[in-house]
């Protein structure tokens, strides 16, 4: 996760570099450190350093790291010619290196030569089966080919070993949601909440999944997780507010006629509706009628 100060720092440096203020290397280092994906900028500024032999040699041994970074950025931007050049330079410098081998395999993948890339990756994995990047590349490759079940299989295999990697859990959760396998997705999001209980987005998505699953128990739980999201975001998350309204009306529908008193916090819905109205009034007054009609339909049902 990138903290706010770090993000500001990156943006500041980026605008500085874009306006010709120098500091390109610092910017690139920071992007690499924070693992951001700003490939176009990296490619542009990285190339400007690499093409200037004086600046390049001033980096010392960091030069090769930059080559690697630019190569990956180039692949991301489909500048395969540039990527190839970078990899060639690295190959000359480090013959037989696994790290360069990884780049070569990635180049194959970028060219969509799936079978060859797969072969390259698996031979790399044979040498070092703990290379997390390669495991993840394989998942990405399966996904790129539209082989979603394959991606799930790879991810599960990966998670069997690296089960504390929450990014992988998130990916798996998103894939399951895209396949409408909500039960499995809810497990993944529970895992994410366990790993980082203070991130409201996980609570929100988990609540979405629970709401989609339906059923009285799940709706109650979803309402609670929407409430948690509201608490964690300070009520600024519109989706969570809508979620509360939907959950309460859903619960009302399910318990209708059973004369079961909904004793837990009946105020929550009215409050969130009020906050929603307030928010729309401030942000986009033109859409207010839409909101009021939507809320009305929820309350009536």
């Amino acid at each position, binding site marked *: 996760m990138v903290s706010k100060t770090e993000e500001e720092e990156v943006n500041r440096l980026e605008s500085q570099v874009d306006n010709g203020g120098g500091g390109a290397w610092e910017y690139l280092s920071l992007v690499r450190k924070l693992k951001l994906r700003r490939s176009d900028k990296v490619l542009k500024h990285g190339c400007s350093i690499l093409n200037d032999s004086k600046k390049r040699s001033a980096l010392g041994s960091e030069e090769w790291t930059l080559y690697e970074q630019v190569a990956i950025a180039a692949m991301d931007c489909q500048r395969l010619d540039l990527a190839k050049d970078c990899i060639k330079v690295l190959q000359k410098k480090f013959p037989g290196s696994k790290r360069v081998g990884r780049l070569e395999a990635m180049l194959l993948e970028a060219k969509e030569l799936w079978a060859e890339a797969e072969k390259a990756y698996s031979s790399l994995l044979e040498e070092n089966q*703990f290379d997390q990047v390669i495991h993840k590349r394989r998942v990405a490759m399966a996904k790129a080919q539209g082989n979603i079940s394959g991606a799930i299989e790879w991810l599960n295999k990966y998670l069997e*070993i690296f089960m504390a990697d929450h990014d992988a859990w998130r990916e798996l959760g998103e894939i399951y949601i895209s396949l409408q396998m909500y039960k499995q997705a809810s497990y993944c999001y529970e895992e994410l909440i*366990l790993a980082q209980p203070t991130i409201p987005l996980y609570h929100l998505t988990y609540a979405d999944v629970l709401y989609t699953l339906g059923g009285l128990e799940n709706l109650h739980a979803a*309402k609670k997780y929407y409430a948690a999201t509201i608490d964690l975001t*300070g*009520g600024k998350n519109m989706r969570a507010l809508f979620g509360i309204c939907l959950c309460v009306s859903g619960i009302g529908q399910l318990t209708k006629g059973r004369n079961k008193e909904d004793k837990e916090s009946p105020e929550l819905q009215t409050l969130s509706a009020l*906050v929603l109205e307030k928010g729309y009034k401030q942000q986009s007054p033109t859409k207010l009628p839409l909101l009021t009609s939507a809320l009305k339909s929820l309350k009536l049902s």
Partner: protein
Amino acid sequence: MADDLVLDTAIRDWVLIPLSVVMVLIGVLRYFVSKLMRSDQVPDVKIIKEGQLVIRARNLRAAANFIPAKSFRARRYYYSNEENGLLHVPKGQGQNPQAQMFSDPNMAMDMMKKNLSMIIPQTLTFAWVNFFFSGFVAAKIPFPLTQRFRAMLQNGIDLSTVDVSYVSSRSWYFLNLFGLRGLFSLILGEENATDDTQRMMQMSGFGMDPSKSLGAEKDNLDIVQHEWALPKFEQRAETVLKKLVSR
């Protein structure tokens, strides 16, 4: 008494300085040799998996109240049931590190390499110092010291009448051996391999039994009382929203 021994300047030029220089050079050499000999340690799948498992179980324990009771119970069962729970270590299977070392020749080999690169140059330099410089009084400390320092500073000279502030060559060797660490970290960078104390720490940490941490984690997990924290969040959300509305 303090001035009755005059040290020849030749001793400084031929004993004191060469000794220090040789010690530094040997330290540097040892660093590079051990760098050459260091084999890439390929960690075991099982060890990595156990490490990750412990992290995950710890997460579960810390944030248990954030997931519904049903999910928590399912997870706890998954981790710690008696048949095939991930954290459950069958009795007698947790092998002790000694046995592991014997069963894995690579590990013993590694230890030996580490030790060899440490012991061989030390014995050689010690023999060299003993052979050529035994009995030299190599230096004098500019302040007086008590008798207790005699063993430290005058190793190799068995004279009780010599003032303690004189340093024998063998003691100078020892002082260099232990005192040059700071210099090495300057020359070779922070993580230099010559740091003996760190190596000792590693060796003692070597015998850490991963199955033990698994068992401990399991016990911890077993006693966790699950109390879903989410119902409280509804009230908290309410207060948050009330504040927003009234503003």
